[in-house]
């Protein structure tokens, strides 16, 4: 089987993208469409005293100028957060209201107060400039720590002290006691820098209200069109669910930022009804920086204790998580259940306590970005492990190995149950691939050229395949996290798979096809994957959290089970054999041990003609599955980064980057390696280049590609990617997930390597040449003083 599970099948979707025939939202034109331009606050925090649209309304081509009072007046609901976190004291979150168009107050630069609908985009933008908004400017705050300080400006009146919630996990007293008795303590302050996700396709929406049918259609850049439809109808009351079709066509990357249902999509739908025109909006890049949910932005203190044998006895963490000006859809889950539950890492730690203060600031809302909470946990733990090894004077690899979890299932003190893994093998494989033993010789050789070499480890574990619906429900999730699939066998034997997963670069049209091809021995060209349209696909929870393999493909697998069972029944009847003797392989349906056979297409035809079916069997061959996962999955691995620093300039070159990952079963190694490459690139971007910068007035200073350092080809190395898999026991294909691993595992490896090279552990991300150079100067000054 050259096109089945495990084969490096070239992608089915590539041809249309290569030929310029992809169909992204902004490529779509509706008859008589109008364009939306938003009037956005230039201030981070202000009262809206009045909006005067009279001049704008009179301008050429302007169809309407609409504001937040009209929007709420029409019953459009406030934007929700989909995960209710319970505070330490048992109370709920202090959630402030978020209207798609702000009414009395704006809370970040970019907060929309009105929208202009006009015949052309240029007319809309010109008129938006002419809308006069009278603001009373208020003091603003951008950093979580500053927002918690006494006297900080109050952003939402129902969130005193700007605290959204104060949450904890693990046991405080036993952790304190364990740390009290530790032979060695390592303490660190760790900042996880704020990032802008930056999929290359900016967000876009085109909404069409059909008054004759009282029906809405929305094309949008979404990772989860069904969730968008559900939320738009159930919470925002834009339209009832059966009167709203959401289509996410080709989507040019997401990385989390296209999970959420943003003000712009809500506004376009509503404006289409108000104006009786199709309304289109496409973000420009600066608008994307100002409105797409950001990621990370944690400030933490951490304390880890070891006994005299260097076994970890306890870990205590406090984190301040910046949630921005409003609570985005999964914002509450990211710094809690997607973060602190992974603080045990790959290690046996009996005592962990973490508390998290989630904080409102006058910044863009913060939500899940590739990895979502897990990169923050991994960075904290792997930085402190490397630091502890340096303090203890032992090998970082050995300190980790000594503390690895080695038997499964393993329950951590932070509610996760690891189901499988082989951390030592991945570490060994990475060390071999990186020629770790030869490093000191390479360091000496570099030193002879006046360069500083360093090497750094990161042993990550993460939780994917989210997640059992009952489990996430008990933790506060507002939705179930199953996935659905429908497998339709046509009368000629070709197959369509309708999936609730959404592909925006992950190659589902190829990998999902491979699973079907493997099952029936069919050529991949006979199989079509359909996704991204609520009128076609029954339902779906979408693609994020590396769940399309472990959850989405499991649903396909279960639907295939049902199709296979029915096909066998039909074949047994036609071939006059026992159902147990039927085997399906190579596109043939055979009676084992005989020459009796029928083609797969003949089974399809038999199912649809219905001329000769078993007594009582319904015609047709189409089956559905709603698959609910049994546990999270736990991809894990070891990343090793080797760098060379120029001490004169602080410029850091990555000499090699090695990854050894355990993703469970791999359907298509080519695609999996591509996912790892992209994840590592984003992780190196976080570690060395990327940073969202706000000034003291909470103005975003990094809102363009002139100012935000996107990783480019000559910033990055080639990657040496390896796998050492253990099968995941929790799903039928044994898959763990690979989409986020690279972004989770790589930042600490990079920073551990640079700090090793320069001999100064006091270095924050992004480690730009000027920061590295300053850290080098500080190290030499310290050395001189000693």
């Amino acid at each position, binding site marked *: 089987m050259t096109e089945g599970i495990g084969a490096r099948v*070239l*992608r089915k*979707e*590539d*041809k*249309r*993208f*290569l*030929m*310029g*025939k*992809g*169909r*992204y939202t*902004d*490529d779509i*034109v509706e008859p008589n469409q109008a364009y939306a331009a938003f009037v956005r606050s230039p201030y981070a925090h202000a009262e809206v005293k009045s909006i005067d649209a009279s001049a704008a309304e009179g301008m050429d081509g302007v169809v309407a100028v609409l504001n937040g009072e009209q929007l709420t007046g029409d019953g459009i609901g406030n934007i929700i957060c989909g995960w209710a976190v319970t505070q330490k004291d048992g109370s709920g979150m202090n959630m402030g209201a978020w209207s798609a168009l702000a009414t009395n107050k704006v809370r970040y630069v970019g907060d929309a107060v009105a929208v202009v609908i006009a015949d052309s985009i*240029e007319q809309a933008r010109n008129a938006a400039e002419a809308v006069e908004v009278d603001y009373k400017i208020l003091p603003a705050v951008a950093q979580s720590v500053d927002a918690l300080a006494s006297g900080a400006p109050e952003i939402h009146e129902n969130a005193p002290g700007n605290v959204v919630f104060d949450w904890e996990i693990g046991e405080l007293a036993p952790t304190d006691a364990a740390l009290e008795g530790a032979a060695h303590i390592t303490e660190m302050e760790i900042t996880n820098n704020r990032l802008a996700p*930056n*999929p*290359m*396709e*900016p967000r876009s929406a085109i909404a069409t209200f059909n008054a004759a049918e009282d029906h809405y259609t929305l094309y949008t850049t979404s990772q989860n069109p069904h969730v968008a439809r559900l939320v738009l109808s159930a919470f925002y009351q834009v339209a009832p669910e059966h009167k709203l079709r959401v289509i996410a066509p*080709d*989507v*040019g*990357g997401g*990385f989390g930022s296209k999970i959420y249902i943003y003000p712009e999509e809500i506004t376009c739908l509503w404006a289409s009804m108000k104006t009786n025109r199709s309304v289109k909006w496409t973000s*420009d*890049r*600066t608008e994307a920086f100002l409105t797409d949910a950001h990621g990370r932005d944690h400030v933490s203190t951490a304390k880890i204790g070891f006994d005299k044998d260097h076994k970890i006895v306890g870990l205590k963490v406090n984190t301040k998580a910046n949630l921005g000006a409003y609570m985005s859809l999964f914002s509450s889950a990211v710094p809690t259940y997607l973060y602190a539950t992974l603080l045990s890492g790959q290690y046996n730690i009996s005592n962990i306590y973490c508390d998290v203060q989630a904080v409102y600031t006058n910044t863009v809302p913060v939500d899940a970005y590739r990895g979502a909470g897990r990169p923050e946990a991994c960075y904290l733990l792997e930085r402190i492990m490397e630091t502890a090894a340096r303090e203890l004077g032992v090998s970082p690899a050995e300190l980790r190995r000594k503390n690895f979890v080695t038997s499964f299932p393993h329950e951590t003190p932070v509610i996760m149950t690891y189901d499988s893994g082989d951390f030592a093998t991945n570490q060994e494989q990475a060390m071999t691939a990186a020629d770790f033993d030869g490093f000191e010789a390479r360091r000496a050789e570099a030193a002879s050229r006046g360069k500083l070499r360093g090497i750094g480890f990161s042993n990550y574990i993460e939780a994917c395949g989210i997640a059992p619906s009952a489990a996430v429900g008990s933790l506060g999730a507002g939705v179930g996290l199953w996935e659905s699939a429908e497998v339709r066998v046509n009368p000629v034997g070709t197959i369509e798979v309708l999936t609730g997963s959404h592909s*925006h*670069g*992950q*190659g589902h049209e190829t990998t999902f096809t491979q699973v079907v091809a493997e099952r029936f021995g069919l050529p991949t060209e006979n199989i079509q994957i359909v996704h991204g349209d609520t009128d076609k696909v029954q339902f779906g929870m979408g693609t994020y959290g590396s769940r399309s393999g472990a959850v989405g493909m499991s649903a396909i697998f279960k639907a295939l089970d049902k199709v296979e069972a029915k096909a066998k029944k039909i074949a047994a009847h036609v071939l006059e054999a026992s159902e147990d003797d039927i085997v399906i392989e190579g596109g043939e349906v055979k009676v084992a041990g005989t020459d009796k056979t029928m083609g797969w297409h003949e089974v399809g035809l038999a199912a649809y003609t219905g001329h000769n079916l078993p007594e009582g069997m319904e015609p047709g061959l189409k089956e559905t599955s709603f698959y609910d996962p049994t546990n999270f999955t736990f991809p894990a691995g070891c990343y090793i980064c080797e760098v060379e620093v120029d001490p004169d300039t602080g410029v850091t070159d990555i000499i090699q980057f090695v990854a050894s990952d355990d993703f469970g079963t791999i359907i298509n190694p*080519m*695609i999996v*390696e*591509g996912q790892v*490459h*992209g*994840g*590592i*690139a*984003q992780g190196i971007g976080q570690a060395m280049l990327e940073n969202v910068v706000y000034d003291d007035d909470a103005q975003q200073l990094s809102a*363009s*590609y*002139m100012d935000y350092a*996107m*990783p*480019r*080809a*000559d910033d*990055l190395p*080639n*990657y040496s990617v390896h796998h050492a898999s253990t099968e995941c026991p929790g799903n039928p294909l044994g898959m763990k997930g690979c989409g986020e691993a*690279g972004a989770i595992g790589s930042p600490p490896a990079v920073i551990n390597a640079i700090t090793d090279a320069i001999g100064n552990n006091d270095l924050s991300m992004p480690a730009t040449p000027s920061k590295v150079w300053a850290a080098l100067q500080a190290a030499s000054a310290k050395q001189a003083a000693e």
Partner: protein
Amino acid sequence: MTEVSMTVNGKAVKADVPDNTLLVQYIREHLRLTGTHVGCDTSQCGACVVHVDGKAMKSCTMLAAAADGAEVTTIEGIADNDLHPMQTAFKENHGLQCGFCTPGMIMTATDMVKRYQADGLELTEDAIRHELEGNICRCTGYHNIVKAIADGASKMTSA
């Protein structure tokens, strides 16, 4: 309004457009050739690269009027029926994921290969990475794009 006429993918086209119409707007909105993309507003990302008189240009950075009389080739025009060798190389080396930056990458890559071949220079990995300065990809980490361009260069030579 300005009248512009040019040849796009071998076909003569003519239109009256507002003076400030960018070439990319003309290509996408007037000609409805939507393979050329817009990924930023500061001429950084390269999703909009087309060939103007045989040279790679960011079509967001020039007016349609400035291309008056020019020969323009977009991603839709680089191969007749099947794939151009560079397109094949991107497919075979998994040099694309979401596909949004891909047309610009391919237009930059074919231009790069032609320039290096014309100058008799070797297109090394370092050279490819340096030449990609003006094209941003967020999905692939560039590893496979660099491989694809090297492979595409040899395919173009042997083609």
